């Protein structure tokens, strides 16, 4: 990193110390200004005092300390250590002099690009509100929120401080986590309302239609409508059930389930139930059980739900009449590896990490047509985590998908 010979110049130490102290006090009284600012200010104040002492002690030498063109100034200077302070910060910090980036620390270069030092500050940060903070008088200290710097979902707050007439200190504070949490919450509420509203709209539409006497007389139409209404009501029921189980599992996730569940008979039972219900062709699902150690510490209802969801997906999104392989084996580290493999279209690579998000669907219309709520894998993930297990989704486009769940056996937990 090419570091320039930089000085914070021509500020009388007393003045800068005082104004920084004032800034510090203003900052403390503004709740919106967070601790990083305070820490920078503290650093600079401490360093200012320290330097004042040094420069007083070495007053006769202070002019020769930096051989630059400032020797006609009557005040002592901050030497290159200004840059050192900035360089030592973990957060992205810039020192801007008259609209040009004079110093950028490593974090700033990583975030904004290696080209920024020495260039116009607008080449580093081009958000209009930020440009105002960087170039116009600072009458208040409210930070600017920058979206998308360093990644689509990253959020940064930009704080600017005037050190003197020309120089400004720019600090960027990472707000991505807070933003993400808030986003997840908003999305969840929005999605849930939307998912509930769609069947509701259908239902009320048909109720209105059924109030029409002519329609009531026509028996076939009435049946047809009632069929649709029943289906929509069922969809709402499913959604509410899924939401309830999600929150139930989430609430209980801190304590390990305390039943002993024998896995292979349960899996066999569910597979034969699915086949008996006509959802799958008689020999469509193959179960291969290689377990020697079969007991897990688990919750029977949850494991059942997990299996229905994963096998259900394999049936829904697999090739029509394609084979589904359910495999059970032990691993060396006292866990059971349960894998469900289908021969469907697979899942495009970039969707895989997001599948366990609530309401995330690869193909919305298809999942909806198949009666999905988009909560299945979110529930699976919660269940797996409750059991201290691990979920892996592998998919090859055009070939099929394998969902693997690792669950610890009873041997895994020392009693």
């Amino acid at each position, binding site marked *: 990193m090419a570091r320039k010979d930089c000085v914070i110049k021509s500020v009388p130490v007393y003045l800068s110390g005082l104004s920084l102290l004032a800034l510090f006090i203003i900052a403390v009284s503004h709740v919106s200004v967070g601790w990083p600012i305070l820490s920078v200010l503290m650093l600079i104040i401490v360093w200012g005092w320290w330097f004042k002492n040094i420069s007083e002690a070495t007053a006769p030498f202070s002019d020769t300390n930096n051989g630059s063109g400032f020797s006609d100034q009557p005040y002592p200077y901050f030497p290159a250590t200004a840059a050192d302070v900035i360089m030592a910060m973990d957060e992205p910090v810039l020192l801007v002099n008259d609209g040009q980036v004079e110093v950028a620390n490593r974090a700033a270069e990583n975030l904004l*690009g*290696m*080209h*920024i030092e020495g*260039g*116009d*500050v*607008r*080449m*580093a*940060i*081009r*958000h*209009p509100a*930020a*440009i105002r903070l960087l170039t116009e008088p600072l009458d208040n200290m409210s930070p600017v929120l920058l*979206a*998308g710097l360093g990644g*689509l979902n990253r959020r940064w707050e930009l704080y600017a401080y005037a050190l003197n007439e020309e120089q400004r200190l720019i600090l960027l504070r990472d707000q991505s986590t807070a933003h993400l949490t808030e986003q997840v919450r908003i999305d969840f509420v929005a999605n849930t309302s*939307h998912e509930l509203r769609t069947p509701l709209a259908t239902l009320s539409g048909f109720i209105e239609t059924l109030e029409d006497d002519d329609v009531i007389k026509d028996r076939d139409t009435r049946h047809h409508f009632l069929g649709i209404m029943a289906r929509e009501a069922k969809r709402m029921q499913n959604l509410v059930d899924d939401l309830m189980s999600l929150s139930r599992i989430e609430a209980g996730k801190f304590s390990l389930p305390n039943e002993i569940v024998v896995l292979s008979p349960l899996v066999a039972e569910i597979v034969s139930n699915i086949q008996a219900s006509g959802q799958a062709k008689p020999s469509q699902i193959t179960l291969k059980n290689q377990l020697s150690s079969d007991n897990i510490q688990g919750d029977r209802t949850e494991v059942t739900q997990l299996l229905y969801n994963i096998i259900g997906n394999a049936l829904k999104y697999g090739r029509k009449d394609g084979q589904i392989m359910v495999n059970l084996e032990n691993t060396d580290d006292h866990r059971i590896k349960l894998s469900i493999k289908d021969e469907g279209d697979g899942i495009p690579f970039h969707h895989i990490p997001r599948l366990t998000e609530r309401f995330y669907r690869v193909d*919305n*219309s298809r999942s909806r047509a198949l009666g999905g709520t988009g909560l299945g894998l979110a529930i699976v993930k919660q269940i797996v985590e409750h059991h201290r297990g691990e979920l892996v989704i592998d998919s090859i486009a055009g070939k099929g998908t394998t969902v693997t769940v690792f669950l610890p056996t009873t041997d895994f937990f020392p009693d």
Partner: protein
Amino acid sequence: MKKASEIGHTVKAFDEDLGGLRALICEMGGMTEIALTSTLEALIHSNKELAAKIVENDKEIDALEMEAERVAMRIISLRAPLADDLRDVIAAMKISGILERMADYAKNIAKRVPILQNMVSIHPVPVLPVMGEMVSEMVRNVLDAYAARDPKKAFHVAEYDMEVDGLYNNLFRILLTYMMEDSGRISTCIHLMFIAKNLERIGDHATNIAEMVYFAATGKQMPERTRGKDLLASEDN
């Protein structure tokens, strides 16, 4: 970039002008970027006020374009830049023109927000926000590439274009099925289609800028891309 034949002082003054021009383009880019992301937000959350603000702010972008053109002309007439520098100035001028058009597309989308507000929800069309996100990322990355003179980044932006086209076709198909299912949705879908078309055009323009950045940085045309070649060819004369 500096010519050995030029004397120190002149070169410095010239670089400052050129740097100023590049910074101006970045500033304009920042405004275009905000116009685009705010438009998408206004669209997704049916925010009429935000949409109106975007339409209003477009004037500032137009003003910046004129400013960029003025600075560029001044540089050309006062400094008579040669070779690389001239190419830089011309590229900046062209890019400012393209940015102005991109902002116009964003404005067109914003203008549809109040119209769509009284219509069927666009929630069933999640492809549109995804497309918007992708196009915004293209714009952001191409501006980063411009500021950093980074040909590799520019090349990646151009690669996105195919994906955006794919999404556009996908969306087109989805909207067609929506219209066939329910004729009451036709006018909503037509609006959405125009919006998608506008987004797709913004993506195309981002690719055009990417090609210029690549060319300016390497002196070579971006490999394996036929579209936009004419733009670069005219730059050579």
